[in-house]
Structures are given as structure tokens and as C-alpha cells.
């Protein structure tokens, strides 16, 4: 019995250690943002990777999400005789909630996993040791550009998701369910306020930090994973990173919503 | 490290003294390229040179390349000790014209 308690204690201590490590990691990455010289080339490369090349999946998932939302809401609203509120229902759901969350999930799948794997491989191949020995801070040269690229790209991608989602809702509402197009757009303009948009931006910003921080952090400390090495360790931390960022993101979503709604 | 220029027949002679490394090779580069771009043939005098690193070597290589483009010549005189070993290690002793001393050139 005591062995179990010991194990539980050890696991808890380990968890605290990990949180501590990741916090220091984030702190140093943020410091890396203000160090000279900043890796602009890397920043642009990462914006292209995180931002530009995520566009196709954001467009697709945004479109389908908007379409499904419209179908869903039509059914609900019809029962209350308020189908003309479709526009505001779809847009509010997207802007406040689904836009940031779905964009984040798509990016966790695409960017989170590959960034974590990339950083983990760099660690395994001693690339960070090499950088340190060349007196080049890994935080400034590798991590900070990725953090900044995420902060710039993800809110923009969220906005794109929202827009294409609203368009998807329009397509379903107007062409499939026969609602009035102008009414759809009008309700949107009437209902959406600046605080809704602010919620979208704030959430997407927070999610961006969470995603890139956890992915990079887990990869960076892959060498501390017990019992595995090489390719297997990369796979393990990538899985952990994806799961951890998703759960943390959803938790943050709840906290943010409770403050901002 | 110090360097200065003198004339020998129609050549400009660049005397290098001391050690050439990352901290001062840019100065040497500027001087050497100026001389060459003005259309002068150059003899780089290594007699006072005790050490030259890769940035110094790279400067000389760039000088030789520029000289070739401008149809002038670049020679190295009195290479000895560590600088000579670097020339051998990099096989640049087969690329540069090496002479024993500036006075060997009589025309």
C-alpha cells in the first residue's frame, strides 16, 4: 500500500517538475523574443509554415463547420419559429467559440505535432548542444521565431475560419434552406458586437501560445523521457504534446469564456 | 598587426606584420582590394607575418580572384613558419605564386 502512495507522490512531484521546467522554458523563449539578433528569416519561414500552409485545412474545416452549424441551428430554431435568426446564431457560435477552438484543434494536429517532432529530433541530434556551444541561444534562434509566428498567424487563421464558416452557413441557409440572404447578413451585422470579436482575438491569442509552447516544450525535453530513446521517444512526446495542448486549450477556453462572455 | 604599402618597380608591396585574424582581416581586405581595383599588381610580403587565420586566407583568395579579373597579378613573398603551413594545409600554395622575397622580382 505504501508503495502505491510513494508512486503517487513521485508522479506528482514529477508533474510539478515538468510544469516548472515548461514555465522556465516559456520565460526564456519570451526573453528570446527581445534578444538581438532576432531570427527574421526563421520567423518568415515559420509564418509561411504555420500560417500560409495551414490555410487550406482552415478553409475546408471552416466551411464544413459553418455548414453543419447552419443545419444544426435550422433544426433548433425552427422549433421556436426563429429561423430568421440563423445568421446571428451561426456567426456568434463561430466567433465566440468554434472559430478559436476548431482552428486551435486543426493547428494542434498539423503544427503542434510537427513542431514537437522537429524540436525533439533536434534535441536527439544534439543540435541544441551545438547551438549553445556556438554561443547562439536556442531560445532566440529556434523557439522565439516560432512563438512569434504562432501569435501572428493563428489569430489571423481564426478570423479566416470565422469568415469562411459564416459563408458556409450562408450557403446552407440560403441555398438549401431557402432563407433570405440579406436577412442572414443583416442579423449578423445587428448582433455581433466588438466584445464578441475581442473574445475571438483574445482566445485565439491564448490558444496560439498554448499550442506552440507545449509542442516546443515537450519536444525540447524529450531527452528526459524515461525508458525510450531515438525515434520512439519522438513519437511519444509528440503524442503527449498533442493531447496536452488540446486539453489545456479546452480548459483555457472555459476560463476565457467565463471571463469574457 | 600592422600593414603598410611600398613600391617595388611597378608593383605595390603590401607588407603584413604580426598576426592576421578575425579582428583585423577586414582592414587588410579593404586595403588589398583598393590596391587591386586601382589596377596595380601586388606582392604580399609575408616576411613579418607570424600568423594568419582562414579569414586572412580568404581575403587573399578574394584578392587573387579580383586581380585575375582585373588582369593584374598577386604574388606572395617570403612565406614561412605557421603562415606557410596554412598555405600547405589548404593547398593554396599551389594556387598562389610564391616567391622567396620581394627583391627576387627584377622586372
Amino acid at each position, binding site marked *: 500500500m505504501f508503495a502505491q502512495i510513494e508512486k503517487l507522490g513521485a508522479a506528482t512531484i514529477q508533474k510539478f517538475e515538468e510544469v516548472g521546467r515548461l514555465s522556465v522554458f516559456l520565460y526564456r523563449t519570451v526573453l528570446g523574443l527581445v534578444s538581438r*539578433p532576432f531570427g527574421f528569416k*526563421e520567423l518568415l*519561414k515559420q509564418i509561411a509554415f504555420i500560417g500560409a500552409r495551414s490555410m487550406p485545412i482552415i478553409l475546408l474545416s471552416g466551411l464544413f463547420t459553418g455548414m453543419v452549424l447552419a443545419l444544426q441551428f435550422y433544426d433548433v430554431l425552427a422549433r421556436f419559429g426563429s429561423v430568421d435568426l440563423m445568421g446571428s446564431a451561426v456567426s456568434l457560435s463561430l466567433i465566440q467559440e468554434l472559430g478559436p477552438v476548431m482552428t486551435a484543434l486543426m493547428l494542434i494536429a498539423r503544427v503542434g505535432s510537427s513542431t514537437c517532432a*522537429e524540436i525533439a*529530433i*533536434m534535441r536527439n*541530434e*544534439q*543540435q541544441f*548542444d*551545438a*547551438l*549553445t*556551444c*556556438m*554561443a*547562439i541561444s536556442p531560445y532566440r534562434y529556434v523557439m522565439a521565431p516560432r512563438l512569434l509566428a504562432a501569435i501572428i498567424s493563428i489569430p489571423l487563421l481564426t478570423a479566416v475560419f470565422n469568415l469562411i464558416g459564416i459563408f458556409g452557413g450562408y450557403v446552407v441557409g440560403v441555398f438549401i434552406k431557402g432563407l433570405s440572404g440579406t436577412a442572414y447578413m443583416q442579423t449578423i451585422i445587428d448582433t455581433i458586437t466588438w466584445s464578441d470579436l475581442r473574445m475571438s482575438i483574445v482566445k485565439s491569442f491564448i490558444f496560439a501560445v498554448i499550442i506552440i509552447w507545449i509542442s516546443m516544450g515537450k519536444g525540447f525535453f524529450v531527452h528526459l523521457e524515461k525508458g525510450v530513446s531515438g525515434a520512439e521517444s519522438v513519437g511519444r512526446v509528440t503524442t503527449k504534446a498533442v493531447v496536452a495542448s488540446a486539453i489545456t486549450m479546452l480548459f483555457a477556453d472555459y476560463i476565457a469564456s467565463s471571463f469574457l462572455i | 598587426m600592422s600593414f603598410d604599402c611600398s613600391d617595388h618597380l611597378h608593383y605595390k608591396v603590401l607588407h603584413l606584420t604580426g*598576426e592576421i*585574424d*578575425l579582428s583585423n*582581416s*577586414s582592414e587588410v*581586405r579593404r586595403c588589398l582590394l583598393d590596391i587591386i581595383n586601382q589596377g596595380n599588381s601586388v606582392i604580399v610580403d609575408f616576411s613579418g607575418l607570424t*600568423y594568419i*587565420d*582562414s*579569414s586572412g*586566407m*580568404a*581575403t587573399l*583568395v*578574394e584578392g587573387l580572384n579580383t586581380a585575375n579579373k582585373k588582369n593584374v597579378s598577386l604574388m606572395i613573398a617570403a612565406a614561412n613558419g*605557421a603562415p606557410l*603551413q*596554412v598555405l*600547405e*594545409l*589548404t*593547398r593554396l600554395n599551389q594556387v598562389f605564386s610564391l616567391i622567396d622575397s620581394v627583391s627576387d622580382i627584377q622586372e
Partner: protein
Amino acid sequence: MNRNFAESSVLIDVKNLNSGYGNRHVLHDINLSVNDGEILVIMGGSGSGKSTLLRNMLGLKKPSEGQILIDGMDLCHANKSELLKLRRSMGVAFQGGALLSSLSVGENIKLPLRQHTDLDENTINIMMRLKLELMNLAGYEDLMPSELSGGMLKRAGLARAVIMDPKILFFDEPSAGLDPVTSVELDQLILKLRKAMNMTIVVVTHELESAFTIADRIAVLFDGELVTTGTVGEIKTCTDERVVNLINRSPRDIQIDAEKYLSRLTKGAN
């Protein structure tokens, strides 16, 4: 760094080094010095603590006790600019090269120059190519690390390590994964570098032939302890059992217990 050191002055001084990971104490009271201009080979089997010792000397790991002095400066207590100066004069060639995967070979080699010097782009390019030629990698500058073989990666890593003509070169397992011919070539290159550039070189290896070829002195590690240091001749005639075992590893001399061997081979058979 002052290049006018007397031949016998100590460049790297490891004093009473104790280092470990968590509760695991790896290195015990290591005292080691490396003289200016010499090639020191650190040898030991796996688990002897070679990598930990190297990481401490490179400033990648802090010791739990003891000091590492490089050119008189304490590695653990150096401030940022002192550390920068030290690192600029230390080149490190890692096992496997440790090139950055997102940069081409040429860009990798140029990286320290770009970050730490104001040299003209032409100069930097020529310097990079000079080093590639030295490593027999001429023409590979535009390839990505993923396109190179293990041996080429090592040589590219070495090219990067020496691009700034460092005073001290650290080489982690140069021969690992190399065919004998390339290994011999690499040994000769190490000797040439010392001669022409007056480099002090610390090599961590387990390859006996290489060690005996290049070393001025050899330091033998066993189980986290420094067993002995000496010239190649001294090591070869050393009577300490651990050193003898290290040098004379020949499978055919190992006595086997025939019965136990047979039962190991046929375990679980009917």
C-alpha cells in the same frame, strides 16, 4: 585568445570534478589538465562517464562539485561576455555532426561567422569553402544535411567546429560509424589541424587505434574515475587491470564456462 602561450602552459584545468544526474553520481573527483597545443584523448568504455566529462568541459552541464577552468576562466562563474569569448575560441564537433536540419551544409558552416563576426559575405563564403575542401567535401555546400551520409555529416560538423579557427577543438567520438579508411584520414586531419593551426585538441573516443595514432596523452576513465593519464607508451605499459582490460580486448582470450554457455544457448528448448 592569446596565441603566444608557452608550450607547457595549461589551457584546460579540471579540478575535483564531481558530476551526476539527480541521485546518480557519475564522475568522482576528476583531476585533469590539458596543455596548450597538445592532443589529449579521453578513453573509456561505455558507462565510464566520458560523455558526462565532455559535457562538463563544454559548459553544457554544471558540476555538483569542482571547477573547470579554461584559459584561467571558471566556466561556471563566467559572465555572459566572458562566456561568449570563451565559446568563440572553442570548437565542438559532435557525434553525428549535429548540423541544423533546416540549413544547407554551407549555411551550417557559415552560421558562427554570421552570428559573431562582421566579415564580408565574400570572405565568409571563401572561408566556408576552404573548410569544405579541407574535409574533402568540396561541392557539397548546397546539400541539406538529410542528403549526406554519416561520415560526411561528421566532416561537415568538423568543418563548422573549426570555421573560426578555434584555439581548442573538442571532438566527440570521431571514428564512430566510420569505415577504417575514412577513420585514418580523419586522424591525419586532426594531426594536420594541430600542426598548422596550433590547436589544442580534446578527443573522446573508444577506438584504440585512433587514440594511439593521434594522442600526445591519454586519460583513461573507468566507472566515473580517472584511472590514469599518460603518454601512449605509458598507457601501453600500464599495469592497472582496468587499463589493461581496455587495451587488450580480444574475444578469443575470454575464458568461458562451457556448461553455462551451452545452457544459455539452449534456454527454453525441449
